[in-house]
């Protein structure tokens, strides 16, 4: 299903075939074929940055991704539900970004930031359940956020690092997922 393959590239930003396939538990061989096909259509390109190779969406691919997501949203009659969840997410997001910044800048004790992020996850979980009821592909964020928080108890890099599935990386991906699904441009 090209829809999920393109969307996986959008969410991951820049990723190899294995990672794109793993994002929605697809067969890597099928996904490789779809990515090559998408490349022929100008939707994705394969490149190397800083010694790492991967796929990324072109501007055309981004438009196609949003067209397919809009179709999906209409088919599922889920626009109102996603808009409501996005509004609640935006409120939680402010606290998450503040807490992540506080951890990096060491402007408040780490425990306080952890408390905020634990609270954010508690607030997000029912929203994910609500969203997954209409769009099952939203399942999994809570689990990944929880894993990051547990690992952060031993190593706070799991809160904000970019080289692993840290709390902020997962949260940033979730934010991208919501705005891509609604076709909103980042402000």
């Amino acid at each position, binding site marked *: 299903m090209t829809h999920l393959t393109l969307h996986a590239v959008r969410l*991951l*930003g820049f990723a190899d075939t294995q990672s794109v396939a793993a994002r929605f538990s697809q067969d890597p061989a099928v996904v490789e074929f779809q990515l090559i096909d998408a490349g022929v259509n100008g939707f994705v*390109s394969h490149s190397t*940055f800083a010694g790492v190779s*991967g796929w990324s969406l*072109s501007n055309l691919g981004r438009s196609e991704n949003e067209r397919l997501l809009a179709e999906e949203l209409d088919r599922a009659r889920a626009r109102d539900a996603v808009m409501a969840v996005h509004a609640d997410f935006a409120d939680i997001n402010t606290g998450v970004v503040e807490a992540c*910044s506080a951890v990096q800048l060491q402007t408040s004790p780490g425990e306080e930031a952890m408390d905020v992020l634990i609270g954010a996850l508690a607030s997000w979980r029912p929203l994910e359940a609500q969203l997954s009821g209409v769009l099952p592909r939203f399942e999994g964020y809570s689990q990944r956020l929880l894993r990051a928080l547990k690992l952060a108890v031993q190593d706070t890099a799991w809160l*904000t690092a970019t080289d692993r599935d840290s709390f*902020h990386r997962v949260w940033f991906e979730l934010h*991208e997922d919501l705005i891509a699904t609604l076709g909103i441009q980042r402000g």
Partner: protein
Amino acid sequence: MMTILTGVGASTGRALGAARLIHGPDEFGRFQSGDVLVCRTTDPAWTPLFGMASAVVTETGGMLSHAAIVAREFGIPAVLGVRDALDLLADGEPLAIDGAQGTVSLMDGK
């Protein structure tokens, strides 16, 4: 050196580099290691560029934005919320970025 633009200093540090105006993923291939990334906004697709950039200048965002968090992780200066940066800067211009002061300066006395 003359300060030509100001914004929010969202990630501290100073860096020199050529301005690279990037309007979207189709232009990522033009980006060279050590360039100053100048763009409107960023999303997860842009993270690899942060790993190559000497500094980041965006038209949107601020102290509390995803771009600020990612720039701090890479330890590079970031000046965010610089209005019309893509119109006011020229591709290839030598820049000096101060992420504490939130300034974008032009090198070689222009």
